[in-house]
């Protein structure tokens, strides 16, 4: 009898959110135990788009495997590619020309803004406000146009190669980026008006999904999810790569640890990315965009690990090389996987509607979790 209506012995209702559900932004399957509207347990079931990228990469050469990583966290494809390129460069011990470094950082930051824009719109949509989604896309599209002009694709660019970047910047790049900066500054106050300042929104977000700093570290959270709890974990600051140590930007931190803190982190991180772009856009050094590398790359025997900060948190690329042309084993430590594991912890005891808000603030990208 209990099975018939899907309840447990205690009278709790078990409900499947996903794999196809508007709030999960992809094919995440959550099995939720509910008592009325209150959540007692959240259990994620993964693997609906697991493509075994790690296994695929074992049969691809060091030039080829980078393109696959665009398909992991497709919203920060550049940063994923960057991490892989950095890891291969670490093994090859090549120096990257300064122009390539600046281009890479510029692209990373543009990607970060684009990713946060999309997150902002989707987050508001999860809470029932549809309009911000389209407003966010206006700014995001102009970033995508910049990407399309320089890299040739809007989402899966495959622009970073070991030794630099694939092509030089498009002549229009600086002009278009400045136009984007102006557009962004003209429109940013709307974000406050429509969502951030809205009293309904604040009530939905504040004091919801509390995550303490200790738990954030213990659950392996990174990126905005951990920084919302006051954990300083921005890889760009604490283990700087490329030219991040020479740039002036702040690591955004909030101490409240609730959904609203995680929201504010991302909103203010966009400002910091804008700051970085402003510093670099007029100071792109002349020179090569790529160092000459051999046609067939061979990494020495050993293990190489790089950490970069994607829009979602810390991405680790761990290459184990046997000295051949393909990696022996490759592991992607994806930020989404660890951030998802905390969902059960923070969702217990809150309402079903809040679960959606929490998933929004954790910014889950399912291909990133499944890989």
């Amino acid at each position: 009898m209990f099975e018939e209506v899907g309840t447990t012995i205690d009278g709790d209702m078990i409900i499947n959110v996903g794999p196809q559900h508007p709030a999960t932004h992809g094919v995440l399957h959550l099995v939720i135990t509910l008592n009325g509207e209150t959540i007692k347990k959240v259990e994620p079931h993964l693997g609906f788009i697991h493509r075994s990228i790690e296994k695929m990469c074992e049969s691809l050469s060091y030039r080829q495997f980078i393109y696959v990583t665009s398909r992991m966290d497709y919203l920060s494809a550049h940063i994923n590619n960057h991490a892989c390129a950095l890891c291969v460069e670490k093994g090859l011990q090549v120096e990257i020309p300064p122009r390539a470094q600046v281009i890479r950082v510029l692209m990373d930051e543009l990607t970060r803004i684009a990713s946060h824009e999309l997150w902002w719109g989707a987050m508001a949509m999860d809470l029932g406000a549809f309009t911000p989604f389209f407003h966010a896309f206006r700014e995001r599209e102009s970033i995508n146009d910049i990407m399309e002009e320089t890299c040739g694709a809007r989402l899966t660019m495959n622009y970073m190669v070991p030794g630099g970047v694939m092509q030089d910047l498009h002549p229009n790049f600086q002009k278009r980026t400045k136009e984007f900066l102006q557009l962004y500054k003209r429109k940013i106050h709307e974000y406050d008006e429509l969502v951030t300042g809205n009293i309904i929104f604040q009530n939905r977000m504040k004091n919801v999904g509390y995550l303490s700093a200790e738990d954030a570290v213990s659950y392996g959270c990174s990126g905005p999810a951990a920084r919302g709890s006051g954990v300083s974990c921005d890889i760009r600051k604490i283990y700087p790569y490329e030219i991040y140590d020479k740039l002036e930007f702040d690591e955004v931190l909030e101490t409240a640890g609730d959904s609203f803190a995680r929201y504010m982190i991302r909103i203010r991180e966009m400002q910091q990315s804008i700051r970085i772009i402003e510093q670099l856009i007029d100071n792109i050094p002349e020179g090569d965009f790529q160092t000459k590398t051999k046609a067939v790359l061979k990494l020495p025997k050993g293990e190489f690990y790089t950490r970069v900060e994607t829009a979602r948190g810390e991405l680790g690329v761990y290459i184990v090389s046997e000295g051949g042309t393909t990696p022996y084993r490759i592991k992607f430590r994806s930020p989404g996987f660890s951030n998802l594991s905390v969902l059960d912890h923070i969702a217990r005891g809150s309402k079903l509607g809040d679960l959606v808000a929490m998933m929004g603030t954790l910014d889950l990208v399912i291909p990133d979790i499944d890989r």
Partner: protein
Amino acid sequence: MWLVAPKTGSVASCPDKTAGENKKRIDQGTNKKGQRITMSNEELKTKITELLPAATFEEGGEWLNINIETKDWLSLAQQLRNDNSLFFDYLFCLTCIDWKTHLTMVYHLSSTQHRHNIVVKSKLDRNNPEIETVAHIWKTAEFHEREVYEMFGVNFLHHPDLRLLILPDGWEGKNPLRKDFEDPINMIKL
């Protein structure tokens, strides 16, 4: 009170905060437990030798690599986590490598307070891989260990919930990331 915004959290203002205020936040956020003392690889080596004399070390990489016996892992993990001068509270990567003759568990540890990193490795028997779980020490290990369990078939002893996470229900025996795995049905040959 519904119409009144709750008090915690920050004010709703988008323009970026001054650097000073942010620096204050950083200090409040992470350094509250004590002074940051980043240990060099040499210091870490001495310290860990004290804790576990049987450990062997591999150097040359960016981080200190520690090879340990499987049976020592649980006690070492507890000490690494709880020792105030080490305080490795952040397990940022947990994975396994199939070397065809044996498996190797690799744990990447970091300390958010002291900002030092180590890598702990432990050899496992390939036919009957077993290691103690650390899910109660670092909670992130729960999901990562489940992933390793299904991908490599490593049995984590005393794991709270060792089930398939990514693979479909009813998947048996075959471990996709092992080197001898072959899927005759879905294999794409080019």
